[in-house]
């Protein structure tokens, strides 16, 4: 899952220190990662967090393997400041790369330290010792255990670059489909989410949002007492109510909304002319890649297309929630943020408190697909709790807040012009991308980026979003450079410098639109060349792992022998996520009736080493279904003042009746580095659906979502 802007800035090879894997390089103390307990348990402390993607299970598997203990002995401590390793943000499908490799190395190191101590104590030669479920065995039997040596001091040292994790063939737990550690709580309804926290003396609060973006609270009229003794908390134009009981807070919020008078103005562009607005808005220009061919071939065919996607929402089924408590000068926050340290940085700015006085603890939220409202609601809780020192305050967002006020993935316009020579080989490729930036995560800019920070007294507007550096996959330009061989290539991007709708990272960032544009263009060129779309792609792919996923998906789908059926179509989509991570190819089948329905998906993915193959398959399928939903249904709607798609009726997502059958095949690569799985399938799925619609209806849709209305518009446009 996770959707993420990634900044690999955490790892600084230029810092002069011996290179350690992943986040271990910047969090070098072993005791920060691992603690053995005398009662036979191990605690591991990843800085990455559970987002619903199953990362805790995969990390526990890695630790169990390297330590030679059973999985049941591992406890995973949720990330919290100030003790957890600072691993930045859990995003960009990087958790296994950053944290898994760090833990693997740290555990191998801890195992070696413990064994050498046991060898010294007992006189048994080190090479004669082995570990079996935490017990140290010599030729003559047991000589000790982690539990007997559960002395923190042993791990109070820096990790050594010399530690050697096991060779892949020796792994017994990583690489197996261990059941998820968190799932039992979830099927028995146990209290596991931040929403379920019940601290002694906890109060409930609701935020009263303005009726329009950027509105100022002009007047709050007095009125009869609020239900259940609820009280108002106000800071500038930040308005909230606080009550002992949750139902009273909810009722009071509705009451107070009716007593507030706001000064509001038109701040949003015309939704009906959003593509024009994108073309005209002030921006910064950058060249993503430029490679001019010498003696470029004569273009025999040229195809051009503009691809537009409106903003889309995270649309998690649970709403954002946080609990905060002030005690003296210290504030403690429980949050489902993707980055506890980054959140702390921005909380400190808005609350005007030193970061050291803020403790941020991760607690699970509902599915997270990128930078959603989690950080925002944490600030809301801290702002309200400041009014009642000593009392924990829980803030839960309403569905309207979740769909109307969370950051969105920005509207994008991608224009491609590509040509091929007489033999059908790609000759040139021009691509321009327009849109807002894809990251306004907290903790990265001068100004704080938390929603209510713009509404408190003296608050400043959230600055326009940026794009993460290309080295980390980029934002708007993510996957904009085709992997297909092309001698003459230029990709440029415009990042808008005004941001009427707050935007940030959502699963895949720019990839879904860029890959859709690339793959649609490839289909058009294949058609001009009279080539099969799969064969045409393979002809332009030099990377054998890329070719292999394309061939596998085509084979699974029976692509070569497919028969034409009235009202049905098949399409193919391929991408290597971030052009540097997992490879994924998707064949989609649609039925085109009054609306387009996805009927089947065949997906082949290569994620390198799969720590938990079933977990990877689950993530790949989930990402693909997210792609189906985005492609066929989703659009943030707004008028000149407010987002109007703030309910499930106005922001529909995929439902059970619309879910296609899905087959996932993972290519086995146990010896290759692990690459992360949550985001690789979304963009190729969008592209494959567009191809399938073209196949079924003969029309190339150039606006998402692929609704009857947008398909009809494409038909009219010819």
């Amino acid at each position: 899952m996770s959707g993420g802007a990634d900044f690999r800035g955490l790892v600084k090879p230029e810092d002069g220190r011996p290179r350690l894997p992943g986040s271990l390089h910047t969090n070098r103390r072993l005791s920060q990662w691992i603690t053995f307990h005398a009662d036979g348990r191990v605690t591991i402390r990843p800085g990455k967090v559970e987002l619903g993607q199953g990362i805790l299970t995969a990390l526990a598997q890695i630790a169990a393997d390297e330590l030679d203990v059973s999985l049941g002995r591992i406890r995973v401590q949720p990330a919290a400041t100030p003790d957890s390793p600072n691993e930045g943000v859990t995003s960009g499908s990087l958790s296994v790369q950053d944290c898994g490799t760090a833990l693997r190395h740290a555990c191998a190191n801890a195992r070696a330290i413990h064994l050498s101590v046991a060898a010294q104590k007992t006189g048994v030669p080190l090479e004669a010792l082995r570990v079996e479920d935490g017990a140290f065995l010599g030729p003559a039997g047991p000589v000790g255990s982690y539990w007997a040596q559960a002395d923190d001091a042993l791990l109070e040292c820096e990790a050594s670059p010399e530690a050697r994790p096991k060779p892949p063939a020796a792994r017994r737990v990583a690489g197996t489909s261990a059941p998820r550690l968190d799932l039992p709580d979830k099927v028995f309804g146990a209290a596991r989410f931040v929403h379920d926290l019940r601290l002694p003396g906890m109060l409930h609060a609701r935020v009263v949002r303005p009726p329009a973006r950027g509105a100022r609270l002009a007047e709050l009229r007095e009125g009869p007492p609020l239900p259940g003794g609820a009280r108002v908390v106000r800071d500038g134009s930040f308005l909230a109510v606080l009550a002992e009981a949750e139902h009273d807070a909810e009722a009071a919020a509705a009451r107070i909304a009716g007593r507030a008078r706001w000064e509001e103005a038109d701040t949003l562009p015309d939704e009906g002319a959003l593509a024009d607005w994108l073309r005209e808005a002030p921006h910064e220009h950058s060249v993503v890649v430029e490679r001019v061919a010498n003696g470029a071939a004569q273009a025999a065919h040229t195809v051009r297309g503009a691809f537009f996607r409106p903003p889309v929402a995270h649309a998690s089924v649970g709403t954002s929630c946080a609990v905060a408590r002030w005690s003296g000068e210290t504030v403690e926050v429980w949050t489902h943020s993707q980055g506890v340290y980054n959140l702390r940085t921005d909380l400190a700015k808005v609350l005007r408190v030193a970061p050291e006085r803020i403790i941020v603890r991760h607690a699970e939220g509902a599915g997270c697909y990128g930078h959603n409202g989690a950080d925002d609601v944490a600030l809301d809780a801290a702002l309200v709790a400041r009014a009642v020192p000593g009392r924990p305050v829980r803030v839960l967002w309403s569905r309207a807040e979740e769909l109307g006020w969370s950051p969105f993935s920005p509207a994008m316009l991608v224009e491609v012009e590509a040509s091929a020579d007489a033999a059908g080989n790609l000759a040139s490729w021009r691509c321009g991308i327009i849109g807002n930036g894809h990251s306004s995560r907290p903790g990265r800019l001068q100004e704080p980026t938390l929603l209510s920070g713009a509404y408190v007294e003296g608050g400043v507007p959230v600055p326009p979003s940026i794009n993460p550096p290309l080295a980390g996959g980029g934002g708007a330009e993510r996957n904009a450079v085709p992997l297909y061989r092309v001698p003459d290539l230029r990709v440029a991007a415009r990042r808008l410098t005004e941001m009427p709708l707050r935007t940030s990272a959502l699963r895949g960032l720019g990839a879904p639109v860029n890959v859709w544009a690339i793959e649609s263009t490839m289909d058009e060129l294949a058609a001009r060349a009279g080539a099969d779309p799969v064969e045409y792609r393979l002809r332009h792919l030099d990377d054998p792992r890329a070719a292999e996923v394309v061939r596998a998906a085509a084979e699974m789908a029976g692509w070569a022998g497919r028969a034409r059926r009235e009202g049905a179509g098949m399409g193919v989509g391929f991408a290597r996520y971030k052009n540097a991570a997992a490879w994924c190819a998707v064949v989609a089948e649609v039925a085109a009736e009054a609306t387009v329905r996805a009927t089947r998906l065949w997906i082949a993915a290569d994620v390198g080493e799969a720590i938990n193959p079933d977990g990877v398959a689950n993530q790949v399928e989930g990402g693909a279904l997210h792609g189906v939903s985005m492609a066929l249904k989703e659009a943030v709607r707004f008028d000149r003042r407010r987002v109007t798609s703030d309910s499930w009726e106005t922001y529909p997502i995929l439902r059970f009746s619309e879910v296609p059958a899905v087959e996932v095949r993972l290519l086995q690569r146990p010896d290759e580095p692990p690459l992360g799985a949550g985001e690789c399938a979304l963009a190729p799925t969008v592209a494959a659906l567009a191809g399938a619609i073209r196949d079924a209806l003969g029309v190339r849709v150039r606006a998402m979502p692929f609704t009857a209305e947008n398909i009809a518009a494409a038909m009219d446009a010819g």
Partner: protein
Amino acid sequence: MARFTLNGTAVSVELPGEVSLLHALRGPLGLSGPRYGCGAEQCGSCMVLVDGAPRYACTLAVGAVEGKAVRTVEGLGTPDAPHPLQAAFLAEQAGQCGFCLPGILVSAAALLERDPDPDEAAIRAALEPHLCRCGSHNRILRAVRRAARAMREGRAAA
């Protein structure tokens, strides 16, 4: 004040009758399974069974369940004695974030009560009120079929 049976036990709640059943369950009754997702009967996160039928707890007044039997996911089974559906969801690893599962599980339980051998269309129809954003739908459908099979054969689903 409302009195009803919750997961087989008689309970009474000191709340005005118009307060939602969801607030009563998550508030004074201390449950976590039924969840707020939209407050408007559009996502199914709050689904519970009232006298065996799925009802949205977010809009149902607690006063309206006076004298009735309310069942939540906590009443289906426990880790030691799971409901066949819970065993099947674990066996199929049918979930990601899991936020939607308690509602889905009770709707599926109601379905299997009235139709021990539902076809694919019937399962999808029973789950249509529920949203899952993580894309675990196909695993969930498989888990319901697996549980149905197990229940017909009179055994646990795992």
